């Protein structure tokens, strides 16, 4: 079973790579654009009793292109005293982390970029590369606000990496594998007390883990209430203060694309990925080809729906809450989230052995 088998041909290696790169670009940019339009432009506006962009295209749907055009035209300024090379590289590092993340996400039985056994491990490792990029941006900007923002970001992202890892471990224990594709298959083929109507999404047993994961994701994405590194009313814009034009756009895309990718990963780990809730039409273990081919088309759609719901919640929280203070945020991670997730792991392990 090769990846991209949906295209139905054994392509040469370069063509496969090209397709993967294109697919990756689509998988990153399409959700990012949709999220920005649907949630940042529209949902936020509705929550603030206004209509948001209405002029560019029907209901302002072309606004994003206008914005991108505007950013591309702007001058690429770097401060005189900035460390130019690092300053320019930083946004790319952040975006790279997003692209690397999407590489392990399975969209369907055969629709994935790579399929390897340490998927969860890889995902957690790669997601912290963005911390590096943010720290680089903060240091190299030669701006006190950026520096404060960068340091806050580093502290925060490391603190919230831990609960994220720990909350995922529960799922890994239950599934018995670290392969993301296998986790999805497992959730689809398991049954709830003999009833296999909707498979067995792990949110049912790992509810606490899911909650912790989503909180950690919120922090990892530096969205309100965890947006200390950006904190536009205190640190102006934190590590992004000195960026303009194209490089700011990259930060912007990375922010929302990462939100989408994390939502995808959450839906894989806890909500049954591309399968659930459609196992009722006769889910057979992966490999039976008629269903596989259907799911290769339906799976990405299911994933997209789940992603939209989850990012919707992320954004909803973002638009409603004020932000934490830095020390409160650290205290919350170390004194609440980590102990709770450790307890969760323990209980999961005991139950796994017991049943």
């Amino acid at each position, binding site marked *: 079973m090769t990846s991209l088998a949906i295209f139905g041909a054994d392509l040469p290696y370069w063509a496969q790579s090209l397709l993967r790169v294109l697919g990756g670009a689509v998988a990153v940019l399409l959700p990012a654009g949709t999220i920005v339009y649907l949630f940042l432009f529209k949902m936020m506006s*509705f*929550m603030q009793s206004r209509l948001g962009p209405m002029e560019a295209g029907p209901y302002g749907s072309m606004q994003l292109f206008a914005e991108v055009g505007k950013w591309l035209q702007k001058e690429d300024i770097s401060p005189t005293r900035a460390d130019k090379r690092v300053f320019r590289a930083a946004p790319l590092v952040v975006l790279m982390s997003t692209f690397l993340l999407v590489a392990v996400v399975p969209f369907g039985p055969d629709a994935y970029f790579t399929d390897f056994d340490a998927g969860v491990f890889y995902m957690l490792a790669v997601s912290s590369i963005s911390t590096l990029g943010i720290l680089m941006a903060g240091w190299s900007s030669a701006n006190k606000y950026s520096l404060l923002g960068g340091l806050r970001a580093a502290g925060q992202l490391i603190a919230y990496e831990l609960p994220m890892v720990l909350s995922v471990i529960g799922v890994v224990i239950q599934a018995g594998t670290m392969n993301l594709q296998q986790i999805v298959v497992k959730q689809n083929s398991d049954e709830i007390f003999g009833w296999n109507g909707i498979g067995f999404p792990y949110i049912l047993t790992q509810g606490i883990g899911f909650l912790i994961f989503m909180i950690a994701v919120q922090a990892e994405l530096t969205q309100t209430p965890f947006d200390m590194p950006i904190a536009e009313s205190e640190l102006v814009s934190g590590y992004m203060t000195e960026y303009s034009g194209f490089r700011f756009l990259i930060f912007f895309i990375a922010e929302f694309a990462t939100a989408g990718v994390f939502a995808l990963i959450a839906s894989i780990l806890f909500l049954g990925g591309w399968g659930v809730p459609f196992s009722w039409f006769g889910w057979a273990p992966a490999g039976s080809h008629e269903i596989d081919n259907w799911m290769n088309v339906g799976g990405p759609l299911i994933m997209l729906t789940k992603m939209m719901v989850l990012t919707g919640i992320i954004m909803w929280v973002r638009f409603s809450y004020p932000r934490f203070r830095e020390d409160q945020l650290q205290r919350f991670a170390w004194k609440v989230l980590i102990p709770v997730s450790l307890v969760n792991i323990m209980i999961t392990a005991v139950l796994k052995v017991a049943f």
Partner: protein
Amino acid sequence: MQKPRIPGLLKGLGVTFGTMAQTLKPKKLGGGAATVQYPREKETPTVRARGVIALREDNCTSCMLCARSCPDWCIYIEGHKELAPPRRAGGAPRKVNKLDRFDIDYALCMYCGICVDVCPFDALFWSPEYEYSEPKIADLLHDKTKLGEWMETVPEAPELEAGAEKKKGK
């Protein structure tokens, strides 16, 4: 005992969701956004709104009271004396002040309304018209013809609230 408390975090989410529902509700049912899409829809300003000053040139005697009372001196008046035909046949010709120039610089005007108040001959009026922005700041200097055109937009003074003393004459 007090009622079981909903956590404030959930209440906050409820408020934003409620506002979203209100915005998405069709206009007929009393919903809709608080904003208007400006160039397409317009809000009518109130009758008393101080939008632009209109000039009734015939009433002006170029007495300069308005120009002197303006806090930032944005009114420019020039005039000359002219002989007008006498009121009654056989009388001596009257001297009238003829207005040559009456400019208001809206780039300077702070819309305080003192000139309108101070005018003893009812030559200046407020109009609620507000759409006269210009690409060039020099074009904000309205001369007397332009100020005269604003007269068409001057509304009737509104009825007063119950209990108010009726104005005598004027």
